[in-house]
Every structure is written in C-alpha cells, then in structure tokens.
C-alpha cells in the first residue's frame, strides 16, 4: 500500500472539487430520470387503473425491465443513444418506472369505492374525480413508489460513470480498478448518504396529513426540476479532440497523471467504461481513447496505437500469479501453467481477442483452437484430485487465458477445475486470491507494480521502462509480502496505450503522443 497512508478525509479534501461536481451530477441524474419516470409512469398507472385488462401486460413489461442487469441495460443503450447523459438517463428512467406505475395503480384502485361512488353521484366529471378524489387519496401510496424509485436510482446512477455520464460512480469504479480504498469510499459514502437522506425526506412527505400533502404535491414537481437542474449535462463534446479514458486510467501514474506531468497533454476528457470506449471511438463519439495494446477491438474498429515516445506506460507482461500454498497443495500445477509461457505474442493475443470481442466466438472455443494449433490440447482426464480454482478479471483476454489454463490442467493433471471468471477489476481479483477464494489468476506486471505494490515514484521510474526489471521486482515483492508467486510470463505485453482511428490519425499526421500534444496546441 501507500508509503504515506493518506486518510479518507485528506483524500476527500484534496478532491473536493471533483467530489462536489460528482455529487451534483449524481443528484441531477437521479432526479432528471425520476422526473421523466413520473411523467410517464403516473399517467400509465392511471390508465391501467381504468383499463384493468392492460394492467397485467404493462406491469409485466415494467417488471421485466427491472430485472435486466444494470450494466447490460446501459450496454443496450449505447448503439441507440451513444454515450453520455442520454443513455444513462433512459436506463435510470426504465428502472424507476416499475415502482411508480405499480404504486399509482395500487393507490388508485385502492381508493374506497364508496368515496368514488359519492363523487360520481354528486355530479363530478371523470377528470374532477381523478384530480380531486383519486389522486389526492392515492398520493401516499404514489409517494411511496417515488421514494422506492429514488433510492433505486441513487444506486443505479453510480453505474452511469461507465458510459461517461459522470456521478459518484467515477470514484467508486476508479477506486476499485486502482485498488484505492479511499477513492472507493469517497464515492460510496456520499452515494449511500444521498440514498439515506432522500429516503428520509420522502418518508416525511409521505407522513404529512391531507392538508399539507396538497402543498407537498404541488411543490414536489418543482423540487424535482430543481434537483434535476443540478445536472449540467457534462459536455461530452467540446475542444478539438475528445478523449475517453477509463476511471482506472484517470487515476494512474502510468495513465492520465503521467500524460499530464510528462507530456503536458491537455485534452478534453470524459470518463467512460472500457466496455463501450472502443465502439464510441469507432463511431466518432471519441477521438482518443486509453486502450490496451493487445485488445482485439483495435483490429475490429481500425484503431492505431500512438507511440509512447516518452515511455510513461510501463510494460504489462502477463503471467499467472499463484498462492504458494496452492503450489504446495497441487505439485503439478506450476509445471502445467508454465506450458503456456512464451507461447503468445502481442499479435497472437490481439488476434485471439479479436475473435472473442468482435467475431463473438466463445472464449472456450478460441482457447481450444489455439491450444490445438500448438499441439497442447489433450482430452480431459476427468481426474478426481483436488479442485484448482481459477480466477479472471472481467474482460475477454482474461476469459481466454482462464479457459486455456482450465483445459491444460484437465488434460495434463488429475486435478479438477472450477473457474470464477468475471471477478471485476484488479482489486476484487487480488483480494479473492489473498483471501483463498481462488488459487491463481493471470495478472500483468505493470498492474502488480502500480496498482498493487504502489512503491514510491523513484522506484517506479527506475523500473518501469524495462520489462525484466519490472518482472523481477514484482516477483520478489509479491513473494515477500503476500506469499504469492509470479510464474513465467506468457509472452505478450498488454500495456496501456493511447489510440485513435487510423484514418483520423493519418489525416492529422499524428503518430506519437508528442504529435498529439503538438496538434492540440496548434491553432
């Protein structure tokens, strides 16, 4: 961990500007979507309370929308709405719909039939009955729905940072990828507080008596709009070129911090998840992105890597890291895993990634084809030794590597295998390893150095340009600190890289990061 342990408070003070903006964005996102959800959900709820035969289908559809995993929903939005605020708001709004529609329906159908009959018998019109009788009496139930929707939205809005819509998720997911607990908490605590505060305030509104609820019902829309206006839509487009960086890249010395300090690069940046970044670049939504040099989408979307002429990106050689007690428990494991060492070069890895990321072949098939071509594929022995647990982070390359290791272990030893793929970012994977939840996973030297060990700047400078030095340093330190062994490198170097569309880079004559800087500073 850090040599100087920064406290959470220090971090929050240091980042107070960002924290403030993110909090406002978070509130704004929550309430814009909530406001639109009320505009849609309330009339829809009223309508199905009138036409009961439609209540089943409508509530069913809203219920299904609710069950779509948030990240998947955000993913669906990108081809339709691009990145930034729009898809985030739409996704949030879809989540908020169900409680609002359902509670409006329940509230209105729950109004005492005698009261409705009295209203009708006194000569009120349908609209008068709706506005003077049904809605006021259903209001506590409707408010409860809005309250549920608000709390859901505060939670889901953290994911908006995946598609460059800002919010407290920037800190949370940045912190997870950077293994920075302070950063995670700086996002998570305010988000939790927001949820608690809004929940409390709405619970108070709900408990008001009828007289006050009239005023509350009138002020609520105004309040919603006010809250919504906190969200000055982050200008996703502006400046000569727009860069999309992952939250992880934003906070790293070998990322945006290095670009600023070593290159002095000043570019308009939006924060975005790497899941959508490449596509956004391909579709001209972004011009410069922070990618990985072996990413298959490089090939798929015709992007080029800009040369890192000042060497700020350290080498990221991949190798399996294994807990030492696992090596003792499974004596044949090290030998088996090392079968892959030196087998996969940068271009092979890019090709393999291309097949999963772009051709949508399954990681298992890609892994099987590769092992067969190298003569490493053996049929499973169906052994019943112990179970080796493989972990992987949540992207294609790691899935492929995990599949390869799984096949190698099954074919060459009597061990059984269980794979725990998709363990999020570095922090989750590494914590799973040290806490004996998995036995090994593929890690990268640069990540081990900068995200896990985090030595001081001088040590980093002395190591980070040389691939062997880095490997030996992390190997030694991991063994000493964590009892974890770095096995032999697999061969490829999946380093950070800045990339642009091939065509644009050619047109603007940008080949290196320094070229990019010169272009940005020229008039």
């Amino acid at each position, binding site marked *: 961990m850090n040599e100087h342990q920064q406290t959470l408070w220090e971090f929050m003070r240091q980042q107070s500007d960002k924290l403030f903006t993110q909090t406002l964005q978070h509130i704004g996102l929550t309430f814009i979507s909530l406001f639109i959800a009320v505009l849609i959900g309330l009339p829809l709820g009223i309508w199905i309370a009138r036409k009961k035969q439609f209540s089943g289908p409508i509530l069913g559809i809203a219920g299904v929308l609710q069950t779509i995993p948030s990240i998947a929903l955000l993913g669906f939005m990108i081809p339709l709405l691009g990145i930034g605020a729009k898809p985030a708001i739409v996704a949030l709004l879809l989540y908020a719909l169900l409680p609002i529609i359902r509670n409006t329906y329940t509230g209105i159908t729950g109004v*005492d039939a*005698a*009261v409705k*009959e*009295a*209203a*009708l*018998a*006194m*000569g*009120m*019109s349908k609209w*008068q009955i709706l506005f*003077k*009788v049904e809605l*006021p*009496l259903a209001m506590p139930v409707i408010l409860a729905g809005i309250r549920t929707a608000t709390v859901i939205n505060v939670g889901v809005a953290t994911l908006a940072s995946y598609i460059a819509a800002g919010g407290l998720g920037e800190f949370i997911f940045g912190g997870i990828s950077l293994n920075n607990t302070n950063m995670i908490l700086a996002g998570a605590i305010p988000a939790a507080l927001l949820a608690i505060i809004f929940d409390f305030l709405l619970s108070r509104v709900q408990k008001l008596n*009828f007289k006050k*609820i009239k005023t509350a019902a009138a002020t609520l829309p105004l309040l919603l709009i006010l809250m919504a206006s906190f969200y000055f839509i982050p200008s996703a487009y502006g400046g000569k070129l727009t860069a999309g960086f992952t939250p992880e890249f934003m906070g790293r010395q070998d990322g945006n911090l290095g670009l600023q300090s070593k290159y002095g690069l000043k570019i308009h940046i939006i924060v975005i998840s790497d899941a959508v970044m490449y596509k956004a670049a391909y579709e001209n939504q972004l011009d410069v992105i922070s990618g990985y040099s072996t990413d298959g989408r490089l090939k798929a979307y015709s992007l080029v890597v800009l040369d890192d002429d000042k060497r700020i990106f350290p080498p990221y050689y991949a190798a399996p890291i294994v807990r030492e007690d696992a090596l003792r428990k499974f004596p044949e494991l090290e030998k088996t895993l090392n079968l892959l060492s030196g087998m996969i070069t940068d271009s092979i890895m890019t090709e393999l990634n291309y097949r999963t990321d772009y051709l949508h072949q399954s990681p298992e098939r890609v892994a099987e084809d590769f092992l067969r071509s190298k003569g490493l594929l053996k049929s499973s022995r169906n052994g019943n030794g112990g179970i080796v647990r493989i972990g992987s982070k949540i992207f294609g390359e790691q899935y492929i590597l995990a599949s390869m290791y799984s096949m190698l272990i099954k074919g060459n030893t009597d061990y059984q295998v269980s794979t725990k793929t998709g363990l999020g970012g570095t922090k989750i994977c590494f914590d799973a390893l040290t806490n004996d939840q998995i036995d090994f996973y593929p890690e990268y030297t640069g990540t081990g150095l900068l995200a896990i060990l985090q030595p001081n700047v001088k040590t980093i400078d002395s190591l980070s340009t040389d691939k062997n030095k880095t490997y030996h340093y992390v190997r030694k330190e991991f063994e000493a600190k964590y009892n974890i062994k770095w096995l032999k490198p697999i061969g490829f170097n999946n380093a950070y890289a800045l990339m642009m569309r091939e065509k644009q880079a050619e047109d603007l004559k940008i080949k290196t990061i320094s070229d990019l800087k010169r272009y940005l500073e020229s008039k």
Partner: protein
Amino acid sequence: MITVEQLSKHFGKIKAVNGISFEVKEHENLVLLGTSGCGKTTTLKMLNRLIEPTSGKILIDGKNILEQQPELLRRGIGYVLQNNGLFPHYTVAENIAIVPQLLKWDSKRIEKRIDELIEKLHLSTDQLKVYPNELSGGQQQRVGLARALVADPPVLLMDEPFGALDNVTRSKIHAEFKALDELKRKTIIMVTHDVQEAFELGDRICLMDQGKIVQNGTPAELLFNPKNHFVKDFLREQRLQLEFRAIKAPQPPEGGAFELHGAIIAADVSLWWLLGQLKFTKAESISVLDHQNKKVGTLGFDDLMSEFYKYKSSHTHE
C-alpha cells in the same frame, strides 16, 4: 314527479331488475324494501344513472333522464350512501361544499347555506374544520345528509342511509329525520332491508323480490292487506311492533295536535310513538289540542290500546 316504466337491468344472464314500474308523487317518501340481491339498490342507482338501465324509461318531472347529461342530472339529485362516502381528505365544510362548487356558487352563498344546514342538523360550527374521521358515525351520517341537501335538490336518493349505525344512534337520527323540515319538501326514495325503518320512515313501501315488485302500498296496506304469502312472511316476525307503527294515533280535530309536558307533537305520529312517549316520560296521559291549541281531551294508555284493537279488527274483516 318520478315515473319508472318497465325498467330492467341485466348483468349478463342475471336479471337484477326485471321490468318494474312505479310512481313517486311529489314530497312522498318511497321506501324500496327487500332482502339483499332483490334489486332495490340497482333500481335506486339507475335513478341517477350510476347504473345504466338495460331497458325501460325513467322520467323525473316528465323529462327522460336518459336523455340528459349524467353529470348535470346528478348535481340536481341528492345522494346519501350507507357508508356516507365522505371524502376523507376534505374537511366537513369542504365535503358539504362539493356540489355548490360544482354548480359554481360564490363562496358567501355557500357559507351561508352551510351555516343554515349545520344548525338544522345539530352539528356545531367547530366541526366544520375537522376531517370526517374525527367525527362519530352519527355525525358523519349527518354530514352526508347535509352534503346531499346543500344545493336543495328536489329529489333525494338514499342507499341504506342508516345501515351502518348502532340501534340507539339510528332511532335518534330517525326522529331527527322525521322532524327535519327540509326533508318534507323533498321527494325521497330510500333503500333499506330493515322492515322497522321502512315502516317508520316510508309513506309508501315497495317490497321487492328477485328483481320484481311484489307489493307497492302504504305500510298499513302491506300489513293488513298483504298481496300474497311472501309479503305476509316477510313481515311476520315483527308484526306486532309494525302494527303499532303502521296505525296512526286517533286523530285530533282538523288542524289540531297533541301535547305532552308542554311540548307540541304533530298529529300524524304513530300509535307506537305515542305509547313510547307515555312510557319514557312516565306521564299519565297526553293532551289533545284543537286548531287553536285549546285542550279538547286526553289520551291515556288504555285509550291508545283500544284504538289499536279497533283499527285491527276493522281491517282484518276486509
């Protein structure tokens, strides 16, 4: 005033109301009596089009109500529900003011009319600002009545208006109901399953069964001239009490009244009621007054009883 011709309402195959006809004269109080499911409530709700008839005709003051706009029709007909149907989110004053506001009265006029009604219905002005749930059941029912009466509609429809009240409160409200001058000017159609209530409040009673009218007549006609066994059986259990109620007190001279402990009692009270008064006040007799309030005789317990037997024997011989 109100004419119903061949009125039917079918719900699918069920004939809730099956071709009934009756008339209600101006200022008359007609009670639709019957067990649940006999079609009495459906009939009532067709009169202000809460339920649309399957076939038949309803005329109020000679006008076919099915040709009028339902909202406008309903604003001219008072409606009192069993569970009062007061708006829980409106204060008592706001509840009473609903129809005048629909009719766009100015606020001074509404206020004046509410004050007037409050007094007649024995409610206090403090209660105007409270919500219905803060009132007792009897008070709520009074507010419901005030709400129906506020715009002074000529017709009042009442759906089991006193059904949710306990016996003590109910007989109190019955007495008030009969004494309320506003109601004397109304044509009232009331639904009830309570035979006692029907006999106490109704000028005429329509006894219904299975969507049809079995007998339509005055309480005395139903009792002493039942059309068939159904009518007889329907009234059997409470026959004695009903007879006392159905039989009017021996009438004082034209324009006269009764007097008891200084209080004037209207002439058209039932025998039952006078007997009750005698018992409660422990008086020996009731004074009979002529049109100039001069005492012309007295009625004791024995006089009243002999009047009852006289009436009964004369009617059963018919």
